[in-house]
């Protein structure tokens, strides 16, 4: 029976591959846009590592996932023996490629600001991101304002080498800043109570329709919110003020929301935690694990380019070291990050129909000794370790 079973799969696989290969435009550079990628294992949407090995691509999308089979026609097939395919990593707390300053500090309520306007597709941050396996990034305006503006979500690579790719969203989540970083000594608000009084009146105006369109659509539950918080108290306040209005809420806070775990579990909010570093306290490092095991969606962030490209995977590895389930940690840097950015319908998982944004690691992406072998964005190989011999493990130059 097993034999038969396997045979049938093999037949199916061969059939599919043959179809794909013959039907599609057989590109002159099949090396760069393969029809299929053969790996040992791949990271499933639920974060585990499964042993399906063939991923077929079609028009920049993932067409099918197949068990291993002998492929008759080997043209246009990329082989990575012993490798693990992972959905392209997503950094949801970054300002990469943002040209110049992203602090628009004249007014503390500035919903009209769009991060996409300072997006520089030729910025070298994107090449570094690709090299470390990050295929999409959320670019946020700096959260030093109460209402800081709209995020953009972009792919870090595309058809032309060294350039950022397509824009996934230019009207992404609206960024709100909470806590001391929004208080300045030279303009209102200067304090917590001043900030809250201001926010109350802004949201009141948004509800009654006399505010910026973005705030209005947020108040009517049609727009996501991304809330930057400084301490646990801010998290509570943020959740209770903006959090209950927005379509989906992501809260960025790293150190100590243990007290609020239950409150958070009652909402659908995503907690964005990180970046982590080795010098942090145990209390901080174990928070991602605590939140995840309480059933809260956790996304981990690497904060490119402030931290290096390795930061995202290091954060995930440290989270696992301090108690996070490894499957959840893999989700936290892929699908959960995509959810927080509001692009989970296109990226973040290896599933038929999703964008073919793939990172081929030499092992488990959570292991720091795994290195990036190749990166595909929209089915096109944008990076290959073979051609970057100076590269060290993890994609750091």
């Amino acid at each position, binding site marked *: 029976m097993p034999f038969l079973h396997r045979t049938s799969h093999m037949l199916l696989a061969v059939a599919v591959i043959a179809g794909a290969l013959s039907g599609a435009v057989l590109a002159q550079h099949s090396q760069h846009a393969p029809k299929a990628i053969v790996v040992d294992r791949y990271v499933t949407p639920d974060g585990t590592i499964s042993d399906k090995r063939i991923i077929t691509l079609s028009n920049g999308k993932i067409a099918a996932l197949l068990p291993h089979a002998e492929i008759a026609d080997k043209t246009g097939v990329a082989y990575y023996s012993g490798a693990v395919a992972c959905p392209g990593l997503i950094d949801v707390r970054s300002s990469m490629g943002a040209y110049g300053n992203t602090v628009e500090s004249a007014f503390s309520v500035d919903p009209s600001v769009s991060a996409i306007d300072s997006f520089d597709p030729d910025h070298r941050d994107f090449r570094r991101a690709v090299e470390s396996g990050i295929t999409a990034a959320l670019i946020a305006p700096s959260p030093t304002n109460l209402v800081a503006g709209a995020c953009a979500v972009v792919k870090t690579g595309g058809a032309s080498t060294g350039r950022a790719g397509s824009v996934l969203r230019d009207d992404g989540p609206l960024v709100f800043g909470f806590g001391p970083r929004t208080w300045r000594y030279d303009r209102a608000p200067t304090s917590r109570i001043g900030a809250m009084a201001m926010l109350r009146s802004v949201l009141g105006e948004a509800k009654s329709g006399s505010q910026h369109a973005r705030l209005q659509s947020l108040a009517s539950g049609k727009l996501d919110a991304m809330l930057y918080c400084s301490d646990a108290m801010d998290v509570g306040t943020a959740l209770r003020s903006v959090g209950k209005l927005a379509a989906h809420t992501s809260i960025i806070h790293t150190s100590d929301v243990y007290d609020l775990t239950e409150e958070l579990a009652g909402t659908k909010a995503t907690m964005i935690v990180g970046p982590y570093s080795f010098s942090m306290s145990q*209390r901080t490092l174990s928070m991602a694990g605590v939140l995840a095991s309480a059933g809260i969606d956790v996304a981990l962030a690497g904060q490119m380019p402030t931290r290096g490209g390795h930061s995202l995977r290091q954060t995930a590895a440290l989270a696992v070291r301090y108690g996070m389930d490894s499957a959840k940690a893999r989700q936290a840097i892929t699908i959960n990050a995509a959810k927080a950015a509001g692009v989970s319908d296109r990226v973040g998982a290896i599933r038929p129909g999703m964008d073919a944004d793939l990172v081929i690691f030499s092992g488990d992406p959570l292991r720091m000794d795994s290195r990036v072998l190749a990166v595909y964005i929209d089915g096109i190989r944008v990076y290959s370790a073979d051609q970057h011999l100076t590269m060290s493990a993890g994609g750091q130059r």
Partner: protein
Amino acid sequence: MNRRLSIQTIIIALGAAFVVAPALASPPAKIALKGGRIIPVVGEDIPVGTVLIEHGKIKAVGKDVEIPYDAMVIDISGKVVMPGMIDAHSSRGLDIRNENLDVTPFLDVYDAIDPSKLYFEDALRDGVTSIHAIVGNNCVIGGLSRVIHPIGITPDEMTQQPSVSLKLSVSPQRGSDRMAQLATFRETFRELGEYLENLAEKKYEESLEKKDEKIKVGPDEAKKLGKDLIKPEDYDDKHRNLVKLTRGQLGAFVYAGRAGDVAAAASLAKEHGFFKRTTLVLGASCYKAIDEVKSANRPVVLDSKLLYREENPITGKITETFIPRVYADAGVAFSLLPSSNTSLAERYLNYQAARCVRNGVSRQAALEAITINPARALGIGDRFGSIETGKTANLVVMSGDPLDFSSWVDLVYINGIRAYERDDDIRLKQLLGEEKPEVAEPAKDEKGNGEAAGDKAAKADTDSAEDKSEETSEKAEKKKE
């Protein structure tokens, strides 16, 4: 504090009068404090009894003491008499707390005591009759300390016991570290040994010269032979007190600021021969070294900060430890210090004791910690610290129980002399609104509120009357002189 000075300078003229005058007046030969509750600290309380003072000493204590016909009888019924409280470690009476130099065993606080400090007036008001004037903790080897009482216009007059102890600190000086601190000790004692050897050699040579003999022995032998020839007056100022210290002729107050310093303090004292005369002055966190403190079995003086608050770095939870309780539970005899900070309450030694009781220390242990324990630590336990026959008549009469915060110090006797009387305390009266401020307020327009105006006038009258009586009593005192 500076701001207070303006008022204080005005009052000081008045205050000085009552501080100084009693000290100069010769005491009545015999005084009987009759009818009050007696807390002798050593021994059982006497609910109603008499303390008989004769020539500055306690002649008799008890329920039925026969009062001599010529004794001045003071009725203190309803009040409480207790031994004068003892401040075991205070630099507040000095002009500055610490010298800039590290090693200053040649200094004596005698030169730094400033009798005009308001602190002494306050101490008297708070019922403190003995103050161990000692340099602060910011030193390596500080100067000689002495026990003084808070009355008198010269340090000589104030002195109860000179040359009590040397101050040493194993905790680092400001701006220094522990290694440097202990290295300084080592260097000092090494230098002392060298000095003694050279002195011995010199003395031996001198003794031979006197006899017109030539030296026949080597330097090592000379050092040994000369040892016994050194007389106490041969030591120079720089080394005299250190020699006394290492021979156990001086007490040592060794400050350990942190738990880790306790062991260093003990080993330093043992190594250099003054362990038996050592009193440990312990910082707040030293309760953590309670085992070491207990095994040292030396008197302990606690920092005025009695509550230790610590934050758990991981959970953020704050734990509080009441420090004297730890020592009391371990059976270590400790002395309490009044706080010198701005608090209204902790500056009272009896309140510090009340805090102990509130936190589960026995009443007896708490009372001992402000009277007999410091007296013993200072080596004056045979003269002060309790109400016992034969001891010096340093007594405090309080309006109620000493551990009740609403009791006031009514009378203070030092050497049988009445040093303080609350009825004459002008500054206190002013703070309590019983005395008009020094500058008369302009009369307010009452607009037909005749009653209030009348009240005010009446009050002003009584005030001025009090002023007059104050003046007259002062005059009377002066006539007595």
